């Protein structure tokens, strides 16, 4: 994989929610929730897991170039970019009303794939 396709420090910093001025403009409490995770897994494996849970929940799944889009009562967009040779960054943006399905169903299932620097996941 080419070095130039890795995320640089400014890419990462600019994803941070403090730079996201859209919070100023959101009304009615419908705003975009943005979260990031680091994983040492292959992106393909992460996407497969997400797709599996999405289908269980009856969400509509659309595969994208670098991620996946899910539609249910929440709209969820996932994008995965490479950070280093070993690590990828998973960005999840979601918006919706009612039950936060990502928090309730997806996060618990994905926790095993999230990188904890204390215990490195080796492929």
């Amino acid at each position, binding site marked *: 994989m080419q070095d130039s396709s890795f995320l640089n*420090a400014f*890419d*990462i*910093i600019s994803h941070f929610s403090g*730079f996201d*001025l*859209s919070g*100023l403009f959101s009304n009615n409490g419908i705003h975009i929730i943005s979260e990031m995770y*680091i994983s040492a897994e292959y992106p393909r494996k992460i996407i497969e897991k997400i797709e599996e849970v999405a289908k269980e929940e009856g969400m509509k799944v659309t595969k994208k170039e670098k991620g996946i889009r899910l539609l249910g009562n929440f709209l969820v967009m996932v994008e995965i970019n490479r950070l280093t040779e070993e690590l990828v960054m998973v960005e999840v943006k979601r918006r919706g009303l009612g039950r936060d399905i990502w928090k309730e169903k997806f996060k618990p299932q994905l926790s095993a794939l999230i990188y904890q620097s204390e215990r490195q996941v080796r492929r």
Partner: protein
Amino acid sequence: MGCFSSKARRQFPGHEDPVLLASQTAFSVSEVEALYELYRSISGSVIDDGLINKEEFQLALFKNRKRENLFANRIFDLFDVKRKGFIDFGDFVRSLNVFHPNAPQEDKISFTFKLYDLDGTGFIERQEVKQMLIALLCESEMKLTDESIEIILDKTFLDADIDRDGKIDKSEWHNYVERNPSVMKIMTLSYLRDITTTFPSFVFHSEVDEIAT
């Protein structure tokens, strides 16, 4: 969000003539009026003094979560152009203007350079970028080893720091941004182009109309 007489509006500190602001920015008069409604709700959220202080700014950005945040502080400082400790309406409109799709790229590049130059030395130093990365990791659920952080910094500076002096100057930043346009993504809010239709819940009167009647 209610209507109120424009006479009362003129008495609020921080208010500035929308026609003047429209002439200086990419916003139309009615768009500036719509921004004023937004400004009013933000500036009145903690202290109803017609000005946005740091707490109100953070509340507006993060909704229910009020928190100290390196980046929100930086953005606040850049909006508060004259370092008065608060953002008035002119500051608000002129700063948001930089994020307008039609704003000059030069202004956007300048803004990000100042944003990342934490101590205002005129250079983006490696230590500053490291500080921002670490602040980000602390705030979110992500953990990285020191080694990984150094790898990311190495790569970034290899790409950006052309004269290898350990810091990025303005011209190196220009060069870097041209080769990495994704870095400038945050500087354009496309919905600013059409604020009056994006936010129909804003009710406003045009000052110009009221003067005529």
